[in-house]
Structure formats: structure tokens, C-alpha cells
């Protein structure tokens, strides 16, 4: 214990150490590393937040599909070519295919 204390005292009173140049370079390297790490962490945090937000939207959609909010609803699909003055419309039914909404022509969608 005494030996350690003596050694510590000797080190603290010693004039040896890193030069100013070494210290500055070390600080610069450390700063660059810290900046890179901070950037990577904030980027990943932003990505995770975005992914979570998107996942929530998709989950809402999944819940709506599972609850049948859209499935089975009928509507109209219309195609229009203004240059020809042609509009074509037909009935379509929204149906669930593997948990994702698809809309098929009414006659095809009927069982």
C-alpha cells in the first residue's frame, strides 16, 4: 500500500508526460471519433423513429383490414383518356389477400 502511494507520489511530482503536440493530436482524434459516433447514433435513432412511425401506420392499416373496414366494400374503378374523350368505369370490390387490400373487378371478385 505504502509502495503504491510512494509510486503515485513520484509519478505526480515527475516532470515526464505527453508533449503539447501529442495531447492536441490525441484530442483532435478523439473529437473526430466522438463526432462520428454521435452522427452514427443520431442517424440510427432517426431511422428507428421513422421505421417505428411507418410500422405504426402499417399496423393501423393491418388492423383496419383485419376488422373488415375496407374488405368487401364496393366502389368504381374508372379509366379516363382526356385526349380521346373516353371514360370507362366498372364496379370493383376491395378484398383482403394475405392481409393486404386488393381491388378486383366486381364480376371476378364474386365467389
Amino acid at each position, binding site marked *: 500500500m505504502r509502495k503504491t502511494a510512494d509510486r503515485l507520489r513520484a509519478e505526480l511530482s515527475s516532470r515526464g508526460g505527453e508533449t503539447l503536440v501529442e495531447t492536441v493530436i490525441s484530442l483532435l482524434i478523439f473529437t473526430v471519433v466522438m463526432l*462520428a459516433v454521435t452522427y452514427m447514433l443520431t442517424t*440510427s435513432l432517426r431511422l428507428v423513429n421513422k421505421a417505428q412511425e411507418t410500422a405504426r401506420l402499417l399496423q393501423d392499416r393491418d388492423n383496419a383490414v383485419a376488422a373488415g373496414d375496407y374488405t368487401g366494400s364496393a*366502389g368504381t*374503378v374508372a*379509366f*379516363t*383518356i382526356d385526349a380521346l374523350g373516353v371514360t370507362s368505369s366498372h364496379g*370493383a370490390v376491395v378484398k383482403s389477400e394475405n392481409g*393486404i387490400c386488393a*381491388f378486383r373487378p366486381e364480376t371476378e371478385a364474386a365467389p
Partner: protein
Amino acid sequence: MKKLKEILRSRRGASYIIVLAVTAFLLLLAAAALTAASSAGESVADRVYKEMGVAADSVSDNLMYSLQSETETLGPGIVKGLYDSQYPADGSAAVTPGWEMTVSLPAGALPEGAAVSAIKLAFTDLSVSYSQAIAGRAALYDESGKLVSAAIKAKPAGAKVGAVMTASYTITYLEKTVTVTDVFALTGAELADTGTGSAAAMTVAKRGEWRLTSHEKNG
């Protein structure tokens, strides 16, 4: 090498090793966070692309149905448009047409925020063959300049139309975009002059057959 060994043996060497270890740890931590974020993003992106893939299949399905439908006007309208482009009533030069088609969908067909762009129609291998042409004739005037008989525009009594139609559009959802390219082949469409004179408009006598030959999704 000798210098390096000296540094590593010295007390300063220990500092270097500690700094390196801390730096490596921080970098590993950041890399792990990025990997986790990337993995979460990929999983969400997969689901988004699945949604868009099903939407693309649905649009294609409905477009094919509309082109072939017996009661609707899309297929015949395009056939008539193709004929008119090759045989313009005003005598102007024939051009290969390209049209834009908008699509409206039922509520709930697409997720909120998703959109289908206008469908661009382009045609290749366009063929229009005429039959039983009615000869054209210039206007006839007498010596005083008085019109004796009006000009008659040459006009076929019938025409067969064939073409390859490329319908391309994009579906966007949650900042992702999928480009869809559908190729349809039109064969056997026919127009006929059902009127009594050369001024009568050609009408579609046979709507022909539309076949979906290719359905590609990129994104």
C-alpha cells in the same frame, strides 16, 4: 517496430491501449445501433413494397378487364384513336400516338397517402390496313369558277388495327416508388364504314382481343 514495442511497454502504451479500446467500443456501439435501425427499416420497407405490389397487380387486373369489357368504351376508344391517328380526317400526316390515362379507385383500395400516377400509353408495332378504299376526288369547277361538285376525301370502307400498347405508371407510398410497366397486345380489331357515304365516320365493328403479355414492377 522497436519503437512500437517501447511505447507498448511504457506507461504511455497503456494509455494508447485504453483509448483504442474505448474508441473501438464506441464504434461498435454505433455500428450495432445502425444495424438495428437498418434492420427495422428493411422490415418496414418490405411490407410497403408488398402493399404496392398488390396495388400494381390490382391496377393491371382492372385495366385488362376494362380493355376487354363488352360494355365499356376503353378498348374500342383506343382502337378508334389509333385508326384516326393513322388516317386523320383533316388529311394531316399520320403520327404514332401517345396518350395519358388517369385512374380513379374505390375508397380503401389503396392505403392512405398512396397514389397511382397518370398512366402513360405508348404504342409500337402499330398496323392499320385498309380495305375497299373509296377513291378521293378533287372539287370540280366550271369555266366561270362555279363549283360543280365538291371534293370527296378518299376513305376506306374498312380497316384492321393491331398494336402493342405499353402502359407505364408509378405507385408511391410512404416515400417509396414502384414503377409498373404493362405491355398489352391488340389483335383482330376492325373498323367499318357503317354510313352511306364517304363522310360517315368509321366505327369499331370488332373490338379485337387484348392480351397482357408482360407485367413488370421495378422499385
